């Protein structure tokens, strides 16, 4: 049920109420429903992530509270609420308190425009794509607020990294979405889903999807781009001074972002809730999102972290050309190969392979060559 349906339903049910009150009532109830639902999903996701990560690492994971440890998020929440809420004496108090709230608010806000079913849940905004991009970039600001207000050197270093990184990855991310917008000829997420009914965009523009996925991983600062709160370097990054419920809010938002990224990726490139019609759309959507989240988790379990200059170089030297190339290709194909999807897929796949091969050969090395070590003459036991 979306906001529009609820609005009409309440209006029909209680026709004597003034229009504004019905509007406010249905809007509020819808917002509360979404928030509760999303936070619940987030809580379950924390359990899922910890459990699956443990299996990847051949551990057991949380299994004490409830069946399979499912009540673990509740136990965690109780523990974090009961903890002392510490505000450092040197901290900028108001900013310190406001930062986690804004962080959670922006994270929750973007969820309202993800279309599940015919319409997005809280109002079909016709420039939803732009809106989502704008809202997600507020995160950089909040991270900086948190880091600056903590008056801690690790926190400041973390937040400086965050701003530098999030701003650079914003650019290739936005440019890689241009292809999607050009193909669907709309900025509305609902239209983008509808235009993928015959062919998901990931097949038509694999380069765009890849660029977007990498940029999005960096944007939510998860491994291998988790520079912002790099544990082995900066302890907790901008979260270092946070404790208790404020810390919990940050953590919850961080656990919510991968779900959102996966959902957004599903909408943009995997065709949203479209699929074989004998399975309801919501299940399609959920399973696609789940798949993308699991892949993100798999990356996190396996790969180490890149260094800050390597991350910045990757954004400008690899992702940016890739995103521009993708836009160029899609533009050319729209002009010359109108609606001939199979031909487009063929051309784009070849271009992706050539591009990755070239980039790998220019920027990287072909493969690991282990040089044969030559013993130094200063002290060589074999020589004696």
């Amino acid at each position, binding site marked *: 049920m979306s906001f529009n349906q609820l609005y009409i339903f309440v209006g029909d049910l209680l026709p004597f109420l003034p229009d504004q009150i019905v509007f406010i009532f249905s809007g509020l109830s819808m917002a509360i429903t979404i928030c509760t639902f999303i936070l619940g999903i987030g809580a379950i996701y924390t359990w899922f992530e910890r459990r699956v990560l443990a299996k990847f690492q051949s*551990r057991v994971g949380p299994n004490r509270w409830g069946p399979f440890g499912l009540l673990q998020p509740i136990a965690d929440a109780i523990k974090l609420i009961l903890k002392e809420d510490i505000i450092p004496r040197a901290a900028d108090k108001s900013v310190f308190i406001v930062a986690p709230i804004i962080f959670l608010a922006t994270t929750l806000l973007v969820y309202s425009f993800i279309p599940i079913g015919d319409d997005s849940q809280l109002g079909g905004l016709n420039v939803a794509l732009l809106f989502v991009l704008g809202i997600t970039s507020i995160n950089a600001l909040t991270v900086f607020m948190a880091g600056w207000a903590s008056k801690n050197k690790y926190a400041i*270093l973390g937040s400086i990294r965050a701003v530098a990184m999030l701003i650079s990855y914003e650019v290739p991310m936005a440019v890689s979405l241009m292809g999607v917008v050009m193909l669907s000829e709309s900025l509305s997420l609902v239209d983008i889903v509808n235009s993928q009914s015959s062919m998901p965009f990931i097949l038509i523009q694999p380069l765009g999807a890849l660029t977007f996925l990498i940029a999005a991983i960096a944007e939510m600062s998860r491994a291998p781009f988790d520079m912002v709160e790099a544990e*082995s370097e900066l*302890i907790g990054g901008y979260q270092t001074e946070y404790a208790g419920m404020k810390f919990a809010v940050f953590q919850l938002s961080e656990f919510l972002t991968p779900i959102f990224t996966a959902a957004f990726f599903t909408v943009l490139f995997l065709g949203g809730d479209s699929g074989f019609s004998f399975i309801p759309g919501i299940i399609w959507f959920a399973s696609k999102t789940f798949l993308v989240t699991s892949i993100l988790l798999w990356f996190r379990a396996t790969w*180490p972290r890149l260094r800050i200059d390597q991350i910045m170089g990757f954004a400008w030297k690899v992702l940016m050309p890739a995103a521009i190339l993708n836009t160029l290709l899609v533009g050319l194909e729209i002009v010359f190969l109108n609606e001939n999807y199979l031909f487009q897929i063929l051309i784009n796949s070849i271009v992706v392979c050539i591009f990755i091969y070239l980039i790998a050969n220019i920027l990287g090395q072909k493969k*690991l060559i282990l*040089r044969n070590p030559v013993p130094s003459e200063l*002290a060589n*036991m074999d020589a004696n």
Partner: protein
Amino acid sequence: MSVNNELVTVNFGPQHPSMHGVFRMRVTLDGETIVDIEPVFGYLHRGTEKLTEERTYVQIVTLTDRLDYVASMSNNLAYVSAVEKLCSIEVPKRAKYIRVIVAELQRIASHLMATGFLLQDLGTFGTPLMYCFREREKILDLFEILCGARITLSYMRPGGIFQDTPNEFWSELETFMDNIPGQINELESLITGNEIVLSRTRNIGVLSPEDVINGSLSGPMLRASRVKWDLRKANAYEIYDELDFEIPIGATGDTFDRYLVRVKEMKESIKIINQCAKLIKPGPVRNEDVPLVIRAPENEAYAAVEGPKGELGFYLVSDGGISPYRCKIRAPSFMNLTLLKEMAIGGKIGDLIVNFGSIDIVLGEVDR
């Protein structure tokens, strides 16, 4: 427009997720670049060298467990060989074989831990660390069969080892030895080819052969910088002269080579253990003439072994009493820290952590 540029001094440690133990570095940063670094240690100082002066020679074995607490067997071996040199005690052949086996098992355990923590410092979310610890756990189980403890072993005594191996040890060792090469290969294919690891570790913290010799480094740090030097061959103690093994060296002396040398050394250790398990024969394991309270002649002795981290030496001076007059410990971790500054300056914060992780120190040994 001029940018106001100020240097920032940040404390890394003593409480920091990637500081091994309670090490502290006072780092001066220019943005992300390291300008200066000053190591501060002594937070774990327990006065081990002084404590030895009022303990009998056998009691000191328990102190050596607590020096490098991830490689107790090597410490025991180094100490008891110093005492044996001091008092000229004969060691039975079987004891020597068992000592070599446990020392090499300990080397594998220590190198696994070093590799795991290096990868943890690189920013993996604990996965290689857990795999390393899973294998290390099996080695600790073997130690528990041998001597009833897992970390603080107190296994060796001047004149041999405290007690012969139980029967189940050899079958357990065989299962372990069948299993470990596959696990190390798996670990290697998880790490060695990984492009992110390569880009993070190659050409980072390069040390030239001149540097490492001038800094009196030892162990994998030395060998990664192309210096082929190993006490097991250079000063074949115990029975290493009867065994066939290679000394792996690195190609450039960077962080990646230090990791690779450790992995190769683990494979050599496996070779050594397999040879020993074949060669070992039944017999006495402890020189029965050695009393519980040894009264050493007025003399001095230095004995060193190739521990997992480098040359671990004990220098004992005796005044004819039941405890040493002076005991100096040459701790490899402490010596290997010498070149941290040279490795780190000019790099980024991430490089500093990785360089530091590749030294593989244990604070119990650094501060003593």
